[in-house]
């Protein structure tokens, strides 16, 4: 069969969504960020809201997310994306507004902005990519770094005495009445990818209801700074991250 014979519309099982640009992603091969971007973009395409969506990128490895999504984008200062999302949504209530943040961004420097946007019940979607490390700056300890885990700033492993406990910010914000939908997902297997996409879709659709924050944590990897191959990183994620950050819904809209 020739290439042309294979690539026929009726044979097409997958294509890149036009909501992603042609720009080559700078993410390390095996990194979860790219997959999560794709899921969000597919949801935007499927909902037909490309012209109504405003995204907010963080400071972290996904700082350049705006180069990959073909939607209008605002790059926030480190941790301030929920404050940005608050203003954009309140000033443009008919738009779909989402933030995309790492763990350092959302759960350390931006903790106040995160908690207060959630507590005010801002009608936005928050995507939280937890890779238990500061990816962009070269693998320092994050608020979500597991006990015993080695990073550039806890080279002998995180200890409670020196560094306190890993922060389960998702459990924390699920307690707030301003959050409407809170879930923890992952993207390290095709099955998880499909589930995660459903959750992201739900989180975007919820904006139509004006009931508060829809929050999707994605337990992800950082194979580069975890200093593992991509396959090993995903295995490590399953064995170490998931027991501490169990997947599933933490808060679902009452039916």
């Amino acid at each position, binding site marked *: 069969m020739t290439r042309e014979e294979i690539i026929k519309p009726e044979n097409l099982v997958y294509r890149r969504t036009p909501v992603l640009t042609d720009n080559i992603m700078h993410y390390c091969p095996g990194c979860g960020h790219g997959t999560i971007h794709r899921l969000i973009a597919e949801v935007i395409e499927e909902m037909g809201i490309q012209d109504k969506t405003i995204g907010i990128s963080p400071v972290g490895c996904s700082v350049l997310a*705006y180069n990959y999504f073909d*939607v*209008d984008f605002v790059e926030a*200062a480190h941790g*301030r994306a929920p*404050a940005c999302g608050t*203003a954009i949504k*309140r000033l443009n209530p008919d738009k779909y507004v989402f933030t995309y943040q790492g763990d350092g961004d959302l759960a350390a420097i931006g903790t*106040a902005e995160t908690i207060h946007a959630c507590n005010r019940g801002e009608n936005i979607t928050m995507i939280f990519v937890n890779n238990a490390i500061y990816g962009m700056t070269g693998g320092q300890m994050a608020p979500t770094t597991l006990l015993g885990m080695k990073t550039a700033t806890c080279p002998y492993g995180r200890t409670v005495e020196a560094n306190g406990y890993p922060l389960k910010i998702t459990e924390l914000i699920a307690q707030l009445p301003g959050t409407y939908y809170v879930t923890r997902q992952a993207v390290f297997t095709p099955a998880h990818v499909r589930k995660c996409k459903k959750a992201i879709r739900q989180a975007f659709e919820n904006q139509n209801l004006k009931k508060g924050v829809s929050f999707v944590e994605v337990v992800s990897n950082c194979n580069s700074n975890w200093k593992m191959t991509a396959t090993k990183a995903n295995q490590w994620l399953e064995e170490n991250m998931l027991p501490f950050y169990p997947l599933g819904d933490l808060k679902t809209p009452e039916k």
Partner: protein
Amino acid sequence: MAKELKLMKGNEAIAESAIRAGVDGYFGYPITPQSEVLEHLMIENPVEKTGMVVLQAESETASINMVYAGAACGKKVMTSSSSPGISLMQEGLSYIAGAELPAVVVNVVRGGPGLGTIQPSQADYFQTTKGGGHGDYRLITLAPASVQEMYDFVQLAFDLAFKYRNPAIILSDGMIGQVMEKVVIDDYKPRWTDEYIAKTFPWAAVGKPASRNHNIITSLELDSAKQEQININIQKKYKVCEEKEVRYEMINCEDAEYLFVAYGSSARICQKTIELARAEGIKVGLFRPITLWPFPSKQLKEAAKNVKGILSVEMNAGQMIEDVKLATECRVKAEHFGRYGGMIPDPNEILVALKKQIM
């Protein structure tokens, strides 16, 4: 347009002016001596009048980032605070300047450093006119000397902010924020429509129609050569601003042998000192910069040609005096007189200082 006369506090004038100027959003956090801005906005509830959004944020850090993001959508947005809160906003101001967004900030200055005092001060001159946050940027700085100017400068600040796509700041102080004066106020101006914003500000992040590329609001450019070019463009813009936007006022300068240089509250007090001085036959005038950046350097240099000495009167330990000396190239004696830490100079002590330091 129907004009109305109202008695109000400086802080209330800021709030009232914002509503009537068709501002889209105000984000703020309480701090003395400017809390009346947010309080007045909450009382007026402008969402019912013009659709203006008013939100009490969790911190000044959050408020300025709300302003950043609102501005990114081409909306007319603002915040206000007082010194310690403005210090927290420096990060956001730098981002707004870096992303070349229009926004208005009001600083009702109080005495510092640190928690300082809630009394009036002009000690934030350096922070406002020389930077404050990181990077090469400037804030277009307007210094009101009356409640009427508090009112008028909100609209002016938005005009300049949008013209130059740069933050503009109203540098007031606790005295002008708290004092009550008569103000001429305007009718309500409607807010800009979404269609108008999308058409007039093609850079704004408002949702990408199929007809154009996506808009990105960012201050990041990792390629140094490109980042330098961005900086060069920003500096070019500042040159134009320096040429075109200088504002100042000269009072009793025609026959003056001495000059007070003072802005805001200090300029008001100096006017009283001029009366006292002239009663004694001392010919002194006032040069009042209205824009502190761009500073009216050329104009001051010109004015200084005919005088024997200059006293820079400031409610700080000597900040604007540096710009006065730069402007006059030290060709004429220029000294600083200040009270600080929340102390307001008395017209008589300014006269004494003039005699002792300059005459």
